[in-house]
């Protein structure tokens, strides 16, 4: 009984979508709206989100109509039996936008094996960073026993650089502006980056409630289409133009936020054209979670988790 936002049978489809934004950045639906792709659909900003899991939970409980998070989080939410479906990818890593796992220049850590018994700082457990690290360690051939000896320590991203330099951490996870600023100051070198490990990949997707999709097929199609076109627009336009557009949108919406980080935007990081999702972008994390014992092996297949059915760029690509 949580589908508060869904239209009741017989009623017209929902045309106003509630969502949580991100302070200081522009999400693709917002871009789509600005580009005029949304048609009769209106967006209703209810506030900003603090984390992906919180965002998709809000969507799952009907507080909002869509939300996005790391694919691993989506798998977990689905495993918890929440009726959601990923419809499009919205962030990821490529050569320009990626997350790196950094050590200080003088650090003795050179290989994955050196990490045994060391501390790695991550922003939150059970999410993107942890998943990448575990995958890295596995691919480097460490046994599960050895992997267990690598300590993951939660630390706010803001504190990561400083903790790393002070020696409280052996490895720090950095991305985005924080990474750029930290690298500017020098003295850090990457141990590995996620894009090295996986190649360009989409890491997170936007989800809708299944009942919402069922009751609002047209709205869903329009929304995902607009979303995909916005992604494509950002993927295909020059960086400067995208940044300028983002800055314009931020200035226009008047949320009193700081637009400086937008200037650091480099790329969408989304692998598939128009945000089309690939099987492996879920399968990797399903395997990881099964290894960690968080989900029963074989219970979830990528197909249960996402659909490209509404994405106009899907023909031929993906599964």
């Amino acid at each position, binding site marked *: *009984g949580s589908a508060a936002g869904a239209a009741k049978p017989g009623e017209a489809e929902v045309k106003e979508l509630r969502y949580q934004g991100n302070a200081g950045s522009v999400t693709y639906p917002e871009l789509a709206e600005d580009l005029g792709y949304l048609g009769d659909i209106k967006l209703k900003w209810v506030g900003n989100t603090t984390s992906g899991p919180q965002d998709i*939970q809000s969507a799952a409980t009907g507080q909002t109509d869509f939300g996005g998070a790391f694919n691993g989080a989506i798998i977990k939410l689905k495993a*918890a039996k*929440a009726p959601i479906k990923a419809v499009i990818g919205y962030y990821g890593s490529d050569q320009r936008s990626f997350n790196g796992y950094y050590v200080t220049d003088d650090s003795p850590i050179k290989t994955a094996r050196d990490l045994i018994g060391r501390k790695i700082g991550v922003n*939150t457990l*059970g999410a993107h960073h942890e998943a990448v690290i575990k995958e890295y360690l596995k691919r480097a051939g460490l046994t599960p026993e050895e992997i267990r000896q690598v300590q993951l*320590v939660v630390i706010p991203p803001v*504190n990561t650089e400083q*903790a790393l330099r002070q020696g409280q951490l052996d490895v720090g996870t950095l991305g985005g502006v924080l990474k750029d600023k930290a690298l500017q100051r020098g003295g850090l070198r990457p141990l590995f980056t996620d894009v090295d490990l996986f190649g360009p990949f989409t890491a997170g997707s936007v989800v809708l409630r299944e009942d919402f999709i069922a009751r609002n097929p047209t709205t869903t199609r329009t929304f995902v289409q607009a979303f995909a076109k916005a992604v494509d627009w950002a993927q295909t336009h020059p960086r400067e133009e995208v940044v300028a557009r983002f800055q314009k949108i931020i200035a226009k919406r008047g949320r009193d936020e700081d637009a400086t980080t937008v200037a650091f935007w480099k790329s969408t990081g989304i692998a598939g054209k128009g945000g089309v999702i690939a099987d492996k972008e879920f399968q990797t994390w399903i395997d990881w979670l099964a290894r960690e014992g968080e989900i029963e092996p074989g219970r979830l297949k990528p197909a249960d988790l996402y659909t490209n059915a509404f994405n106009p760029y899907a023909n031929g690509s993906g599964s």
Partner: protein
Amino acid sequence: MADRRSAPATGTALSEREPLELPTGLDRHVAPVAAPAYQPSVRTSRPSALARRTRRLASRAVTKSGAILLLLAAWEVLPRVGVFDRVFVPPLSEDLVVWYGLLLDGPLPEHLQASLIRSLSGFGLAIALAIPLGLLIGWYRPVADALTPLLEVFRNTSPVALLPVFTLILGIGETSKITFVLYACSWPILLNTVSGVKTVEPLLIKSARSMGLGPVRLFQKVILPAAVPAIFTGVRLAGAYSILVLLFAEMVGAKAGLGYLILDTQSSFRIPEMYAGIITISALGLLFNLLLLRIERRFSTWRTT
């Protein structure tokens, strides 16, 4: 004389009644210092009295647990009938099953231990720091003048906002976690101690001073005992906080602990496990509170009989 004759009968009639409603309630509950209006123990030899007493105890037990049972029932039923979303608020029984699993062969004992050490250390330190400090501030004008402004600034600065500063200065190890608990627990103890000291009956202070008690003795023998009820209120508040703030203390750099468990399971959507963590934290807090109440009662036997 006819009056006197009838007296025993009437007397029995009265003693068969329940104690006078208002006075007894007051004497027993609000005004424990006053003599109990009514002493059932004197008449336990009469079986009817005993039976009535048992009945009363039983009915009190029902009142006492009624609200709780209602809550638990709601927790079980509402998700089942679909008022709450079962995914996010699973029925109590499911949570308990998971809890039991975590306890028996899961990581719960380890989390519990890690948290307990942090809570108790921080709480203990808060008591050891805040009570003497509160006594000093309540007592010495110069100390109050010198420290109050600074303390008020800190009291009004969220430890969570300061978390980065905390980790900056204290690192991300146990020190910063325990300090965090200490920080959060100190304020209720401090404020209540100060207020306890300030409301000590002045005549008692006068009396002690007239017997030549120095400041230290005066503290120990008059101010402290007189302020005990107020201090304990603060301590009980702090007791709850020492457990509650685990959630923040274990937000940074934790590898185990109940707060960590809750945060971790919450972000991983292991909802029943999250509730298992919340249940454990609440139970721990309740236990702690019970313990503190016991100790408080011991400290104030002169009041509570």
